[in-house]
């Protein structure tokens, strides 16, 4: 009895810590949502904790950005979803296969490639922006969807991440499958992937988040309305004169929703890996 009680109290304590700490982390997001519901003149009037109270809440800011003639918010949203979705889907496939090949299939030269990939992660995007533009422009992709997708499919970070986790998969598992007559691809598909759900989820989430917030690149390659992304699309709200903070917060709230949904969707794959049921360790 005593032990069960102790366990329960323990769990309650952990929950309490999570919620309290969590509030510290989510407060800006909450503030943003509250501000998006307020009339413009009240947003910065309240200071401190008072600013988290949704006074005179209404949806005017949302209506204003969703129903202006000149700005097709939903279209921009779709463009972003499509291009980032493509990056995530294709990227996860391409990068995990590459990582698997480098770690488990060790072909000639794979060691060297590994070092190159780490080196590539070091490159700050700001330093290759202009040269990359030159390359993409030479393909004739300016104002075309491939310019938003293709350069970002292969990602050093993702490959690096997959490598770390594939390394930990015991070779015994593969050897067992191999004896059953599976080829290396089948081993990948039937052994590696099911045992690595958490890392696939992490790679997908982090890749989505990174590219969802991209601004500089889409701005430069995608000026055409038909493929404009949402981060670029909402920039008209930030022009120097007469910034409407309420509308900015509403737009940012709307652009945050897909990321949160994606996160919640993928985080359910954080299940205990089969490898940990005893084979390893």
């Amino acid at each position: 009895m005593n032990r069960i009680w102790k366990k329960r109290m323990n769990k309650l304590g952990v929950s309490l810590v999570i919620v309290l700490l969590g509030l510290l982390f989510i407060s800006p997001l909450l503030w943003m949502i509250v501000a998006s519901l307020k009339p413009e003149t009240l947003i910065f009037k309240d200071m401190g904790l008072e600013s988290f109270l949704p006074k005179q809440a209404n949806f005017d800011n949302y209506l204003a950005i969703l129903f202006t003639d000149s700005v097709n918010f939903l279209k921009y949203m779709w463009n972003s979803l499509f291009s980032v979705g493509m990056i995530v889907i294709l990227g996860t496939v391409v990068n995990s296969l590459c990582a698997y090949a480098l770690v488990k299939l060790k072909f000639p030269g794979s060691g060297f490639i590994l070092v190159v990939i780490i080196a590539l992660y070091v490159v700050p995007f700001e330093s290759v922006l202009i040269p990359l533009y030159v390359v993409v422009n030479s393909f004739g992709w300016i104002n075309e969807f491939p310019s938003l997708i293709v350069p970002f499919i292969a990602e050093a970070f993702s490959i690096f991440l997959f490598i770390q986790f594939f390394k930990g998969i015991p070779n015994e598992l593969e050897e067992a499958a191999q004896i059953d007559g599976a080829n290396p691809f089948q081993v990948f598909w039937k052994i590696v992937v099911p045992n690595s759900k958490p890392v696939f989820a992490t790679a997908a989430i982090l890749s989505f988040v990174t590219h969802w917030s991209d601004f500089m690149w889409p701005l430069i390659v995608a000026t055409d309305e038909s493929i404009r992304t949402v981060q670029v699309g909402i920039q008209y709200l930030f022009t120097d004169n007469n910034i409407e903070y309420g509308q900015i917060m509403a737009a940012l709230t709307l652009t945050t929703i897909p990321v949160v949904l994606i996160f919640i969707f993928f985080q359910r794959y954080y299940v205990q890996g089969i490898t940990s049921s005893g084979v390893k360790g």
Partner: protein
Amino acid sequence: MEWLLNRIQGGKAVRLSLTYGQQKKWLGFLFSVPALVLLFTFLILPVGLAFVYSFMEYNMLNPQGKTFTGLSNYARLFQDAIFFTALKNTLYFSVLVVPLQCAVALGLAILVNKKVKTAVIGRVFFFSPVVTSMVVVAILWTFLYNVDSGLINSALNFFGIPSQPFLLSEGQAMNSIIFMSVWQGAGFQMMIFLAGLKDVPETLYEAADIDGANAWQKFWNVTLPSLKNVTGFVLMITTIQAFRLFIQPYVMTNGGPSDSTKTLVFILYENGFQFRDVGYSSAIAVVFFLVVLSVSLILKKVLNQ
């Protein structure tokens, strides 16, 4: 998938005659080709171009007028006081932020890995700063750090500590940015740790329970050793990310006061885009690349031991 395999290896007969080892070599190459081709075209090639530009006088608005000037950009770089300030600031930031952020991330990951109902909420909440727009983050943290009315100063005053200038002070601005960055970025590393924790065998904890280990002993003797690989990886990528610090000072302090928050990527951007000096900016990029690469390789050596 079979059809693809057959195509590549010229039919079933061939396939049967290949050993697993041979297949590995072939497919290994094949699997990595898409990623390698893409990386080459969209990363290695631009990096190569940047390298070439670093030996040129290149006004971004006048690409036809670019000329080779040898090592002059590098010579200028090593006489540029701001470059050394930026280097120092970047190192300072990295040295402090990496251990802090990794520790916080690990702590959060362990918390949300517990089998409690609030764990999922915790994951969403702790990760939320990563997805929150920098615009909102900057506005709120400027409020928090406000000298007169900021919440942090109110809290300090409550404990009898006088108000601090934070972002307005040469001495405190970088520390303020470090604190904020840990808060904002930890969720990113938390997700990687969380994936790692899912690979720690449950049986190890059960064994530890039987031995009567307390929570700290379990953490020290089970969790940490099992996360060795992941921790090394997280340290490495956090270090590289830390060196790339740019957006926080760009939005919150504009590199000031007195250049105290200027970082290498900040001056790289400033010279390249604001001053349109592609050549000089590329030289900064090359030096940046060499510095961070050597730091990462040293780190990798240390971690491997």
